[in-house]
C-alpha cells in the first residue's frame, strides 16, 4: 500500500483543498465502504486502489478492499468480455457466461457484504449486484473502460447487471451509455508524489539522458506510448519530418517492451524502418518498471506528443501537463477532456496538424510555456488523486441523498 499521507499533498494542492476534504469527510466518518476488483497487482485499477484506500482510511472511512478469486478459465472469460466491451470481436459463448456466473457466485458467498457502500470496479465482479437485496448497502459500478461502442452481445449480457446499481461512474462522457441510473463523471487521476510524477533533480534527468544517449543540442519532441499501431508511432515520425523542414528538432519514441507481445515487435520494426536511421530519431524500448525514466524523459522534453488513433483515457497526457509541458494530442478517447484547445494544449486531427503544431510551438516558446502552465493548473484542479478523493467523498454523500441537487451539510 502507498505510504503517503494526505498532509504530504498540502504543498502541492494547498491547505484549503485539504481542509475541504476534511470537511466533506466529517459526515462520513465510520461509514463502511468496500472496494471490489479483480487484482491487487498490475493494471491501473490496482494502482489506483493502492493509493486511494489508505487515504480514504485516513479520512475516517472504514474502507476495505476485496479482490475476487478465479481460475484461468474465469480470467479468460473476463478478458474476452473486456475486449468485447472495447468493440473488439471476442467470443462470449454460453459456456463462458456460465463460468463467469458460477465463479462470481462463489465469490459472493465468500464476501462480507455488510457495508454501507460497495464499489464494484469494472465488469469482472459485476455479478456481485445480485446480492443487492441481502444488504442495506448502496451499490456503485465504477467503469474504468470505454464502453461507448461495445460488441452488442457483450453489453446486453452486462446491461441487466449495470442497471441494478445505484450509480455508475465513467471516466469520460464519451465512454458512457444511456442508462436508467445516475451516472457520474470520475476522471482518472495521477499521483503527483509517485515516481512517475514527482520532481526530479536536474542531475538525475541528465543521467537518464546520458544513459539513452540523448544530446541536449536541439528541442526534443517526445511520445511515450507502447509500440502499438493505435498510438500511430509511424505517423509521429511523419509529423516530425514535416516539422523538421522548418525547424530543427529531435524525436524520441519511448515505449513498453515487446518481449511478450508479438504485434508490438512488428510495430517496433515498422517504426525502425520508417526512422531510416535518422540520427535525430531515438527509439527507446523501456521495461515495465520505468516510471523514473519516463518521468525524466518527459521533463527533458520540449513538447510531448500523444498522436493516438484510438485511446482510452490517455492519462499520459495529464502526466505531461503536470510537468508543465506543452502537449499536442489527438482528439480521441479521453484526450479532449484533458486538452482544452489553446488553453491547456493543442488538439489535432491529422499528421499535418501535428506537424504544424510542432512548428508553431517551437517557434513560439512563450505560447508553449503558457500552455504548459495552464495545463499544470488544470491537472491540479481536475486530475490529481486529491480530486479523486473529493469525488468519492461527494459520491458517498450523494448516495445517501438520492434525488437531491443541492445537499447542505
Amino acid at each position: 500500500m502507498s505510504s503517503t499521507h494526505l498532509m504530504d499533498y498540502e504543498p502541492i494542492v494547498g491547505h484549503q483543498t485539504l481542509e475541504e476534504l476534511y470537511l466533506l469527510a466529517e459526515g462520513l466518518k465510520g461509514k463502511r465502504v468496500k472496494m471490489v476488483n479483480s487484482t491487487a497487482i498490475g493494471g491501473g485499477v490496482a494502482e489506483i486502489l493502492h493509493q486511494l484506500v489508505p487515504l480514504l482510511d485516513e479520512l475516517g472511512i472504514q474502507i476495505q478492499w476485496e479482490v475476487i478469486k478465479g481460475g484461468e478459465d474465469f480470467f479468460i472469460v473476463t478478458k474476452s468480455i473486456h475486449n468485447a466491451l472495447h468493440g473488439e470481436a471476442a467470443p462470449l459463448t454460453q459456456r463462458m457466461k456460465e463460468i463467469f456466473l458460477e465463479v462470481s457466485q462463489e465469490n459472493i458467498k465468500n464476501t462480507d457484504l455488510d457495508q454501507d457502500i460497495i464499489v464494484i470496479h469494472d465488469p469482472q465482479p459485476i455479478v456481485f449486484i445480485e446480492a443487492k437485496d441481502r444488504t442495506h448497502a448502496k451499490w456503485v459500478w465504477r467503469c474504468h473502460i470505454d464502453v461507448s461502442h461495445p460488441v452488442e452481445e457483450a453489453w446486453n449480457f452486462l446491461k441487466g447487471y449495470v442497471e441494478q446499481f445505484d450509480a455508475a461512474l465513467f471516466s469520460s462522457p464519451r465512454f458512457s451509455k444511456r442508462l436508467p441510473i445516475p451516472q457520474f463523471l470520475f476522471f482518472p487521476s495521477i499521483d503527483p508524489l509517485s515516481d512517475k510524477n514527482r520532481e526530479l533533480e536536474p542531475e538525475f534527468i541528465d543521467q537518464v539522458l546520458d544513459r539513452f544517449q540523448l544530446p541536449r543540442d536541439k528541442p526534443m519532441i517526445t511520445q511515450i506510448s507502447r509500440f502499438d499501431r493505435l498510438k500511430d508511432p509511424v505517423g509521429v515520425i511523419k509529423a516530425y519530418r514535416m516539422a523538421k523542414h522548418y525547424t530543427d528538432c529531435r524525436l524520441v519514441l519511448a515505449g513498453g517492451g515487446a518481449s511478450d507481445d508479438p504485434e508490438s515487435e512488428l510495430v517496433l520494426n515498422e517504426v525502425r524502418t520508417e526512422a531510416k536511421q535518422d540520427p535525430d530519431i531515438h527509439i527507446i524500448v523501456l521495461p515495465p518498471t520505468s516510471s523514473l525514466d519516463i518521468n525524466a524523459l518527459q521533463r527533458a522534453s520540449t513538447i510531448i506528443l500523444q498522436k493516438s488513433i484510438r485511446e482510452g483515457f490517455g492519462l499520459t497526457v495529464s502526466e505531461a501537463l503536470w510537468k508543465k509541458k506543452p502537449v499536442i494530442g489527438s482528439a480521441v478517447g479521453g484526450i479532449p477532456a484533458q486538452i482544452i484547445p489553446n488553453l491547456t494544449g493543442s488538439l489535432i486531427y491529422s499528421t499535418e496538424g501535428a506537424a504544424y503544431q510542432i512548428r508553431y510551438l517551437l517557434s513560439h516558446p512563450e505560447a508553449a510555456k503558457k500552455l504548459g502552465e495552464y495545463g499544470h493548473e488544470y491537472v491540479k484542479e481536475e486530475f490529481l488523486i486529491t480530486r479523486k478523493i473529493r469525488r468519492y467523498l461527494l459520491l458517498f454523500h450523494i448516495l445517501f441523498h438520492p434525488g437531491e441537487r443541492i445537499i447542505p451539510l
Partner: protein
Amino acid sequence: MKVSGGHQNGMGTNPFYFYTSSNLVELTGEKANTLEELVALLKRCTGSAIFYHVFQSYRERHFAIEKYHSDFAQWISNSQDEEVLAERLGSLDVRDFVTLRALRESMIQIIEDHLKAYPQCGKRIGKTPFFFCQSVSVVMPTRDRAGGLEDFYQLIGKIGIRSIHYHLVEARLRLGIHTNDFSHWLGDSLKKERLAQRIEGIDMYLHTLEEIRTMILRYIEEEMNPSCHPPI
C-alpha cells in the same frame, strides 16, 4: 441555510458565515452533434444542466480567462466554428438573470435567430459532440465567520476558490437576488453600500477567481483606509 446573518453581537452586526461547495458532475447521456440538436436539447434539458454549463464548469478552469465562460459558447466556437453565434451567447451576463428559465429562453432565442438567418449551419456536425452534464452540489459551512470588515478582509485573503465562487456566483440563483452574498452582507449588515456596489460591479468573466479575490481585497483596503488608497 444561513449565508449572512446569525446571532446579533454587541455591535448589532450579523456575522458573515463562509460556505463552500463542491459538485459532482452527472452525465445525462444526452449529446448534441449539431446546432439543431443543441437547441432541441436546450429546450428539454434540466435547469441543473444549464446551471452547470454556464455557471459551474468554468470554475474548473478558474486559473485562466477563456474566450467564453459558457460551455455552450465555447463549443459553438471550437467545434462548430460559428463565431458570431458564440460571441452572442458568450456575452450573456449572469447578472442579468435571476432565473434559469429566463437564461434558457434567452439562449434558445439567440440560437434560433441565428439558425433562421443561417439555416445551412443547423445540421453541420461539429468536430466534437457537446455532452450535456449537470451537477449535484454539496454545500458545507466552513469554520470561518466574519464579525466585521476587518475579519472579512482577513478571511477573504484565505478562503478557498470554491468559497469565493459559491458566494459570488452560485448565490445569485440560489437566493433569487440580484446581487451576491458578499455585497448583500456588506450593504445590509455593515451599511457599506459603496463597497458592496464595487464588488457587485466586478466583471467576473474577465478575471480569474484569484484576480477577483485580489480586487475585493483592494476595494476593502480602500474602504478601510481611504486616505492611503484614493479610489480608482
